[in-house]
């Protein structure tokens, strides 16, 4: 390989806390031999670091996603090592690229096939709002047909922007209440998209 290791070649007094990152424990009740906290906090913590995305790559943003998945801007560091191509096994639907009106029923079908809890990330200007293609055949944003959690602007967004978007999804996953998917608010949201 052409690129030599530059950092940490001769570690002097290596401190383990420099090499490993720790997250803080959620708030809870501690005592000798036990620790009690809210269930949803632990579940959120576990879920956020192992999101399995479904890359729904249609056009140019798909190539930038491939660059994000590559070793330079590694997405697998954030837990998304396993990309599934089947919606039945994935948590995060990443819609990357222009969605034409011919493709819209397929996006909706893929969304319906995903199991709760599911999140949607719209990457790029075309998926967020139609992008530069203000024409008769392009759907002006996928939020016309499915609810979207995070939008990443850009044409195409830089891989750092994609990583930022995935981190925001991770924040959403971390803070999500266990009852959200059954709440009337969420049901009303889905109803507004004609999704039962």
């Amino acid at each position, binding site marked *: 390989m052409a690129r030599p290791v530059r950092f940490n070649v001769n570690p002097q007094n290596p401190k383990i806390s420099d090499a490993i990152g720790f997250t803080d424990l959620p708030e809870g009740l501690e005592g000798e031999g036990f620790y009690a906290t809210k269930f949803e906090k632990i579940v959120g913590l576990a879920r956020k670091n192992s999101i399995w995305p479904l890359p729904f790559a249609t056009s140019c943003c798909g190539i930038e996603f491939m660059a994000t998945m590559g070793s330079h801007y590694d997405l697998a560091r954030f837990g998304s090592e396993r990309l599934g191509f089947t919606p039945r096994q994935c948590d995060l639907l990443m819609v990357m690229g222009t969605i034409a009106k011919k493709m819209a029923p397929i996006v909706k079908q893929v969304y319906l096939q995903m199991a709760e809890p599911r999140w949607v990330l719209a990457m790029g200007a075309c998926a967020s709002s139609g992008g530069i293609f*203000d*024409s008769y055949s392009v759907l*002006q944003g996928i939020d016309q047909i499915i609810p979207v959690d995070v939008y990443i602007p850009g044409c195409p967004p830089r891989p750092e922007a994609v990583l930022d978007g995935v981190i925001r999804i991770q924040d959403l996953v971390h803070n999500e209440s266990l009852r959200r998917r059954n709440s009337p608010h969420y049901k009303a949201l889905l109803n507004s998209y004609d999704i039962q």
Partner: protein
Amino acid sequence: MEITTQYIQDRLLEKFGKEISFLLDPYEMLNFETPKDKNLKVLQFLFDDEILRFRFLIDICAVHYPDQKGRELAVVYHLHNLQDNVRIRYKIFTPIENPDIFSATGLYQSANWMERETYDFFGINFVGHPNLKRIQNVDEMDYFPMRKEYPMEDQTRIDKDDEMFGRGSSVL
């Protein structure tokens, strides 16, 4: 022998006589046109002839000229002679009321989808095409979008305000 523009013109005039008309092209490509029912004969002649050898179809497309009455839709064939490196452009015009043109799929397999795309965008009916249906747009579309009378934007959309986008105020 050298295939010059003059040579091609002479051969075509000799074979098709008065039906051919030539256009002077300042950008060095010979353009010619014939009445629309002759298109297969011309393409076959250019294919079979041992000196002309135009055996590669580069492209088929169409153009809509709404102002020329009786000749609104033009189908343009670009042909290429690979051995002698000569390109020509062949146009046929058809009125918009009955845009029937013979299909070139018998001669060139690549004409198949190119003609479907031309049908999809302009509504030209290729007679003899094995599978003439829409290719790029949704199947339920009932108009031919590349014609000049149809706008670029989707008219059924209510979310984007035409005024904000500088298109006049046609949306409430």
